[in-house]
């Protein structure tokens, strides 16, 4: 086992994980490049969230290594894992906001624990991050009064408040209507351009994945069945990948692909890939 190379901030090496008889991750190896948006797609129950939990050290693999920088999260002590986690921000599926705190206090929460800022300074920083996710004027609002999309955005503001190196997204568009999903996708794209961070996204929303990702990996039955630049994965001829994609992408008679929701964001290579002919 070796430490990762500078171009891959996170690297999984032959990771195995099983719960009882159920194999959740089966010899998964991948390198998540620094400064890019990497998305892991796949149907529900294929181990995507388990993979994410291995990266942040919430789970240990049965075998294999999970390198973050020069720390193997599979064998690191709790103290070392806590140090590594200071480099992460994470948006949880339902936001994971604390109900007894206001929206703004949720965003400021990591500042309370990891900086010596005064209350006024924390408020200023948290308000700036809320503005960054296009959610101004909600600092004092109770989290119960926020919509699903707003909760995700508050969770995203909290994830970036300490300016981490890596931001992890667990199903950022799940449970949202198409318009709100498009807004979240757009926001991820904007933050990526503005902050230049490494983003790791877990989703079963292929439309979202194609829109925001530089690289895509697909998990199926615990195995990584596809891995590469978004354009390559979209055009993959692997039957499982095609079956998953074609339930979501719409192919026109002239061989061009389109997405079911025209308002969803498409950028760069992913958009170009979809303009090409349909794979035969």
């Amino acid at each position, binding site marked *: 086992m070796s430490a990762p190379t500078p171009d891959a901030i996170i690297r999984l090496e032959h990771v195995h994980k099983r719960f009882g008889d159920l194999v959740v991750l089966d010899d998964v190896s991948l390198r998540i490049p620094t400064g890019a948006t990497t998305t892991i797609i796949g149907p529900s129950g294929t181990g995507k969230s388990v993979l994410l*939990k291995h990266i942040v050290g919430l789970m240990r693999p049965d075998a294999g290594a999970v390198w973050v920088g020069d720390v193997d999260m599979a064998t690191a002590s709790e103290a070392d894992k806590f140090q590594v*986690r200071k480099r992460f921000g994470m948006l949880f*599926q339902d936001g*994971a906001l*604390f109900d007894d705190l206001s929206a703004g206090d949720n965003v400021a*929460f990591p500042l309370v*624990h990891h900086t010596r800022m005064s209350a006024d300074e924390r408020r200023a920083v948290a308000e700036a991050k809320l503005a960054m996710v296009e959610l101004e004027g909600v600092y004092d609002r109770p989290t119960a009064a926020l919509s699903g999309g707003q909760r995700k955005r508050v969770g995203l503001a909290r994830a970036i408040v300490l300016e981490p190196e890596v931001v992890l997204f667990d199903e950022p568009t799940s449970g949202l209507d198409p318009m709100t999903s498009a807004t979240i996708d757009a926001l991820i794209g904007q933050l990526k351009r503005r902050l230049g961070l490494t983003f790791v996204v877990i989703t079963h929303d292929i439309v979202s994945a194609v829109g925001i990702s530089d690289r895509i990996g697909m998990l199926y039955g615990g195995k990584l069945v596809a891995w590469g630049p978004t354009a390559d994965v979209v055009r993959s001829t692997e039957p499982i990948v095609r079956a998953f994609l074609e339930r979501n992408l719409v192919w026109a008679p002239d061989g061009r692909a389109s997405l079911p929701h025209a308002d969803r964001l498409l950028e760069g290579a992913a958009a170009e890939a979809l303009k090409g002919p349909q794979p035969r």
Partner: protein
Amino acid sequence: MNALATFGRFGWFVADVVAASLRHPLPWRRTIEEAWRIGVRSLPILVTISFFVGTNLALQGYAAFAPMGGQALLGMFVALAGVRELAPIMVAAMVAAKAGTEMASQIAVMRIREQIDALEVMAVDPLWFLITPRALGIVLVLPALTVVSIFTVIASSALVAVVQLGEPGVPFLQRVWATTSGLDLLVCSVKAAAFGTLICLVSCYFGYTSKPGPAGVGSATNAAVVVSAVACAILNYFISELAYG
């Protein structure tokens, strides 16, 4: 076998809580908040229950002793039963039912809503953040609640003895005073602190290890109150045996 495994996991959990509490600075502000919350919220129901336990002790004691002409022993009976035994275990049962279930359900909901995972990812130790202040808070407040319960039991039993049963008040209180020693109050305080620690750790353990979904929260809350109550009853015997046996 299953219970033994759970006991083993609970042991590791307690060790982790102690280690986490020692690794980080004591969260005094949150501890005071917890103590205040548990104390103030529990006080009305505790005083009500203690009051009526006291009235019943007086009635039952009188019914038992009066036919033999032993009414004068009523104060001693109240002191022995109410002060030494009933008050601490009653406070423990009440706190287990109220604060313990609240802790278990709150932490279980935080678990299933991924808020505990969020704390870990934000590099905030969830054991230290969630459990240390609750444990310290309950240890601080339970002895005080027990003292309140003791005085309420004595006052209400004296009220019934004097007003309803026509016993002279001063000899009654003198009997109570003569039977109750400083050791009794010390033992009550030790019991209260031990029960508080046990209730908090058991409740937090079941909440922390809750299974997913509403059923998981329900099971955790149920297990918390049942196990806390049984464990406190057993511990009560051993502390009484050590102190008075």
